């Protein structure tokens, strides 16, 4: 789980240029400045890295750092 969270936090900071200070567990992707296109981009990267199926029915920009980490972690456990 921490690997997944670390990857997500690094992605948000490095690729999406989100200020690391704002990347709190309960911050929504929308609050971090990602629009629907940004969320779709992020999900593709996570799917490729973790080998899990993610789609936009997940909740889009209402997802938080924590909830998205949990979704990926659960899907990983299922595979």
């Amino acid at each position, binding site marked *: 789980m921490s690997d997944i969270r670390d990857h997500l936090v690094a992605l948000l900071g490095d*690729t*999406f*240029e989100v200020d690391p200070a704002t990347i709190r567990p309960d911050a929504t992707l929308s609050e971090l400045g990602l629009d629907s*296109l940004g969320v*779709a*981009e992020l999900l*593709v990267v996570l799917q490729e890295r973790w080998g899990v*199926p993610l789609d936009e029915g997940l909740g889009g920009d209402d997802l938080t750092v924590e909830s998205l980490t949990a979704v990926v972690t659960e899907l990983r456990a299922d595979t």
Partner: protein
Amino acid sequence: MITPAHPPIAITGIGLVTPAGIGREATWERVCSGIPTAARDPALTGLPVDLACRVPDFEPARHLPGVTVRHLDRYSQFALLAAREAVADAGLDPATWDGDRTAVVIGSAAGGVATLEHQHSRLLELGPALVSPLTMPMFLPNMAAGYLAIDLNAHGPVVHTSTACASGATAIAAAADLLRTGACDVVVSGGADAMITPLCAAAFHRLGALSRRTDDPASASRPFDADRDGFVLAEGAGVLVLEREADARRRAAAPYALLVGHGASSDAHHLVRPDRSGAGITRALLTALADADVRSEEVDHVNAHGTGTPLNDITEARVLARVLGQRGAVTSTKGVTGHLMGAAGAVEAALTALTLSHQLIPPTANLHRLQPGIAVDIVARHARSTRLRFAVSTSLGFGGHNAALVLRAA
């Protein structure tokens, strides 16, 4: 004094990102040196022809924020850099100009074709879920124009033109019309393409269009030479800032040159081969001269399309000889830059403007033995300093598109 039928259009800013260099000055210097840029390209390794003219040392992250780099295909990155250079060069500021009166017209033959190829291979290898949602915004050929509008606060007409290798010239002609009709006051206009991809190189090779001189890349692009055997694929962008001359003078902007006429025609003859009679090119040229109210014997210089394919050069040169006689000094800057596809017409319009402002004609690289039957004065080996008033830039595209722009020294 004869009153021109149309208000002259001032070219007040130029931005260039080309194989000859990043930036207007770097490009101009290299083009005037006559030193070719073609080289074997690592991205094309394994193909029958792996020659290309690539923008040197292009690291987009050095010029643009990471998000912008990620969201734009290479062709749009070129367009954006060239446009910003052109606007700054014109002394205009998008933050304060009247965006509603500002237009963008950008030509491109293929748009983000590299993105399309890359994402297509992901679809085949990884499946549909891993196709990037950015594929369409990066690939669509209008997106360079669309992104420039956002970046430059341009809320007037924003248009993409596509006439294959004449796209950039078609864009500038359309831009001039927007100014003539009063639809806007400033147009940011040019062309951009980034087609150095395995698919494009293989496809052009299958058409027999590319030079096969892989053993001697520097000599591969040789317009008007008897030993030419095709063009060399190149990439980049050229962008001009255009305003009505009266508006430019009012704000004390010094134009590089004036765009005084344009003309276009179609061969309506063959998908990719030019009509050997040259009737279509002649019509575009004569239409442009008539539009500019310039007599053919007044043309001092032509920046020719001059791709280095056997058929293009002889057909075009015969037309120039017939229409202009021995008077106009002709060059093809593609000997240095290679063929920038949909950007070519815009880059060459910019080089024609610089030729007029410097009163210096860049040489046609690699012209050692003139093709027999060509009876025009072609500038070879060294740049030629001479008195120039009127100049023409010609652009021809697959599909039979012919375009000519007439420029006057400012």
